């Protein structure tokens, strides 16, 4: 076994896993609160990437430094995607809150197709180059072959996002309100929580983290099109289910398990089966732990 190759695959897996985890957070939070699989969540990630592309293209004419452009483009992507997420909740899900769950699910699929096709019309189906705005970090030079600058940025940013996210959920008033609402929506209302605000905030937060993922992976891969949200969305959904849908630590763990499985699978077995590994690991884990790695075993009350 080649040690360098192993480390390379490991870091590659963590990079993928970071992106899956960032997107999976949105799936799992929304599911935790309103029991909806938000099929259009992958599209929010894609829209985040496109927003960053458009903003950075415009700013490239100003002569600003690339790093500054990247930061502004990323912030714009996060804000814009969060706006999309909240709007989506308002027009596609809120009116269906008391309808059968299947209706909201169909609305989500509709939303996903709508957003994909709208970007397809606006941006064509061609892959568009995503600018390389992050200058190579000098201290990574010696290990360039196993970890490059964008990978490093992805890992660090994801770590920071996860820490901020955890603090927010655990200690802020809104975080507590989110946890209470996820546990018992009626009781949450009876202590005075405005659940509309909580649901809205959940979409905001999930969309923002997905957009961060979208911007990061686009700078890593270097090209995007209208369809990138579809596969990434499904994979992140698999990660969320794998970790135990509704569980926030589960989404993160699921993301990393999936990323590492794919990386080692393609590296040691065959890259032809890249997308098969995700579903294979999902099936294997669900056989042994039907509610996911960190999911609660739901006991049906009679």
């Amino acid at each position, binding site marked *: 076994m080649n040690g360098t190759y192993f480390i390379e695959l490991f870091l590659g897996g963590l990079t993928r896993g970071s992106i899956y985890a960032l997107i999976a957070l949105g799936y799992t939070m929304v599911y935790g609160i309103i029991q909806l699989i938000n099929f259009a969540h992958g599209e929010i990630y894609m829209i985040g990437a496109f927003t960053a592309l458009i903003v950075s293209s415009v700013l490239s004419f100003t002569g600003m430094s690339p790093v500054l452009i990247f930061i502004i483009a990323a912030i714009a992507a996060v804000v814009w995607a969060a706006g999309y997420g909240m709007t989506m909740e308002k027009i596609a899900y809120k009116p269906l809150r008391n309808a059968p769950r299947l209706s909201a699910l169909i609305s989500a699929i509709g939303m996903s197709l709508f957003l994909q096709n709208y970007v397809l019309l606006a941006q064509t189906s061609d892959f568009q180059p995503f600018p390389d705005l992050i200058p190579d970090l000098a201290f990574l030079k010696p290990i360039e072959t196993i970890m490059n600058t964008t990978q490093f940025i992805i890992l660090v940013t994801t770590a920071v996002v996860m820490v901020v996210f955890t603090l927010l959920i655990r200690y802020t008033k809104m975080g507590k309100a989110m946890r209470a609402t996820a546990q018992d929506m009626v*009781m949450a*209302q*009876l202590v005075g929580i405005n659940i509309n605000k909580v649901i809205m905030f959940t979409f905001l937060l999930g969309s923002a983290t997905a957009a961060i993922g979208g911007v990061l992976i686009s700078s890593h891969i270097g090209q995007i099109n209208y369809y990138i949200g579809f596969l990434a969305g499904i994979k992140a959904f698999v990660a969320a289910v794998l970790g135990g849908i509704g569980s926030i630590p589960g989404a993160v763990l699921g993301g990393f398990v999936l990323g590492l499985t794919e990386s080692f699978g393609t590296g040691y077995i065959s890259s032809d089966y890249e997308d098969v590994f995700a579903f294979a690991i999902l099936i294997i884990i669900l056989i042994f732990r039907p509610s996911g790695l960190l999911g609660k075993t739901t006991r049906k009350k009679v």
Partner: protein
Amino acid sequence: MLKIENLETFYGNIQALKGIDLHIEDGEIVTLIGANGAGKTTTLMSISGVVPPRNGKIILNGKDITGTAADDIVSMGLIQVPEGRRIFSELSVAENLDMGAFLRNDAAEIKRDMEYVYQLFPILAERRHQHGGTLSGGEQQMLAISRALMAKPKILLLDEPSLGLAPIIVQQIFDIIKKINQEQGTTVFLVEQNANQALKIAHKGYVMETGRITMSDTASNLLADDEVKKAYLGI
């Protein structure tokens, strides 16, 4: 304090409340008794804004609050301890109490009130760092009442607080309800199937059957009433 006029509430096509009237004065303990399925929980959920009524009026301190959002009703001081306690099972005891004070910003007073409920129920103080879900039924009921007290209720709605509890705990819960009413002047609207105990601490009572109020009188008159005795007191 609280006046209900001709309240009608539906679940789909099923009419659970068929036009009920209630009147609760400031500082009173009023009880609503009735068999399973009579519509007691629906009455409380309608008042709290969780299940909006189709017809009728809910007037709190002279203000029509029909159709007001549940969280706004809480901010007016109308607080419910729901049936089945509904403790946030994955939050600690202390966090559950925090949630009760969700709409308050007076940190120092919140802390004082927390000490007060810990004094009321010392067992909760002992278990403050435990998850709500690990408490026994009686402890959960104490926590549910304490959580409601953290909201500084002007009027407290309790839905079958004695349900499923051992007799000794039931006595303790009723004593506390009486104490809250007497010491804090909190108005209490108590829904119970345990009619005997409820009528003993109440000033006034209503009897409900299949979505309608069928009797209303002072608690002592109801306790002495032959029909009530037969139907609800098992005498």
